């Protein structure tokens, strides 16, 4: 793992096909948009904007809106970050940019 990578000129010899960069970035951004939509829906959506109608549903003593605001949103956040980290591993592998040591194992 190099520490200062931005000082090196763009990787690869001149004329190398760099279109993979756009495809990589597009996949990354699409994943971000999906995950952030869920992020906003469970917290600002269910926990604030729609809390009052959701509170009419009561499960195990919890009004549902309150449950989202104090519990559900947080469970979802943890899962979202895990999904992101695992999914990015797959995208990195697909494009050959994952960080590996000399033996090809994940660094």
């Amino acid at each position, binding site marked *: *793992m190099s*520490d*200062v*990578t*931005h000082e090196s*000129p*763009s*990787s*690869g010899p001149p004329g190398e096909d760099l279109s*993979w*960069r756009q495809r*990589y*970035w597009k996949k990354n951004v699409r994943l*971000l948009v999906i*995950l*952030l939509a869920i*992020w906003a829906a469970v*917290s*600002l959506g269910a*926990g*604030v*904007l729609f*809390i*009052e109608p959701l*509170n009419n549903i009561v*499960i*195990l*003593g*919890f*009004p549902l*809106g*309150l*449950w989202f*605001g*104090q*519990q559900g*949103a*947080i*469970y979802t*956040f*943890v899962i*979202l*970050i*895990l999904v*992101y*980290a695992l999914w*990015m*591993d797959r995208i*990195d*592998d*697909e*494009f*050959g*940019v*994952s*960080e*590996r040591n000399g033996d*090809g194992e*994940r*660094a």
Partner: protein
Amino acid sequence: MTSMQFWTFFFLILTFGIYIFIAWRSRVKETKEFYVASQGVPAVANGAAVAADWMSAASFIGMAGMIAFLGSDGSVYLMGWTGGYVLLALLLAPYLRKWGKFTVPEFVGDRYSDTVRVVAAVCAIVISFTYVVGQMTGGGVVFARFLGLSAEWAVVVAAVVIFFYAVLGGMKGITYTQVAQYIVLIIAYLIPAVAVSQAIGGFPIPQVTYGTILSELDALRVEFGLHEFIEAFAGRAGGQLDVFLVTLSLMLGTAGLPHVIIRFYTTKTVRGARFSAFWALFFISLLYLTAPAVGAFTNLNLLRGAQEATADNLPAWIQPWSDAGYVTVSAGDGSIDTVSNSADSGADLIVSNDILVLASPEISGLPAPIIGLMAAGGMAAALSTAAGLLLVISSAASHDIYYRMISKERASEKTQMLVGRLAMTGAVIVAIFAGLNPPAFVAQVVAFAFGLAASTFFPILILGVFWKKANATGAAAGMLTGLIFTGGYMIYTLEVFGTSANDHIFNVSPEGIGAIGAVVNFVVTIVVSNLTRPPSEHVQEMVEEIRYPQARRLTTGS
């Protein structure tokens, strides 16, 4: 010495000994160790360190107490202080780690310009100081109540311990101490919560059982003049709009706080930064998911106790806390009819938010060792956060301002370390003075740091990573308008610096203004960047490079 004092001393001395031992083992000699722990911290350990760094005295001591009285609206803190990690993990941590230097001002300095670097360094120092004051106050609560020390001495003792391991070990010492502090604070938080959950709810998982007591709690709350726990938008005067803005403000601020971002520089790889963020939020969620349950259970026990109490026969836990100045009883007619957390409410029993968690084992009648453990946990939370903040302050002063700006990168490694340690010493001394004169409630003070972080750092960091055309003029203009707008509104609505408090405009509280400040910053940065010259090819290439964790390898036939 009471048995409670004995156990408090026992756990405090034991844990302080562990912290100092770890700090001594991980003392450092080089700046890379001092600022980013040589970028060799494993993801799980880094996650635990982030969690301890994150969970301040406000989270540990203040939050459940606030939720107990706020009820449903307490979720602004729960969602705000966890939701920001999703933004951080997805939008910032991997890219800033890839770029890989020491501080947040350093990123914006290289990405934009030296002027922005200085503005960012000053903002980092101001935000971290706002925050560190809350930690000192939190430490003071623990000492004042359990050891009978005056709050002044408490602040000094806490500062000396932090000073010892922060100056000696820098980021490395702080990180490994924080791992230990996380373990101490989470055990201290969970044991009483599980015990109370078992005792009242009949099942040892508080996250599940607190739902079952909500109806009994709400009946009691109404009887004592409080709004219902489950009622949305009753706890905050601003209503739905304000709750929305405060939640968003805290989320954006979390993702923009320098002392949190800096932690992702310490991992080995970009992938490590992503997984660190996961572990960090996982560890944080253990406490945050428990906090509303602790708030509800303690509130229930408190009100049950108040129901039976008379002026001559108060529950035993009240007297010591009222001696320490955190509880007021004024039951003129012999019984307690109203309960509140607000000193101006004129209620018969007034309990400060800040003590509910620390007093919860006593209120619920748990044994003395657990109370001692609770005190050690509260101290761990305060110390770990304060140490992380002091590192940001000292690194902004010594690395960003001294090394990059004053010495023009010519200072030797040895001089840099000396300046780093001197800056840390200075920061500790200023923190002591700030802590001796603490304002308002612990958690509220901290909340304002978020508004400032949301309206200054967050937008220009995001644009710096995701928009190549964002330039120095735009970023400087954006940060300054964000800072002036948000800071101005806070000064306008709060009694600070001798100004009088004015009414909230459109019911937006000063804690929520950061979200609007962030939008202002985004708009100004984008508009000004479009009107001025785009950044150099070199900078644009740098932004391109941080998007990919590693140079591409085509050997595996992908």
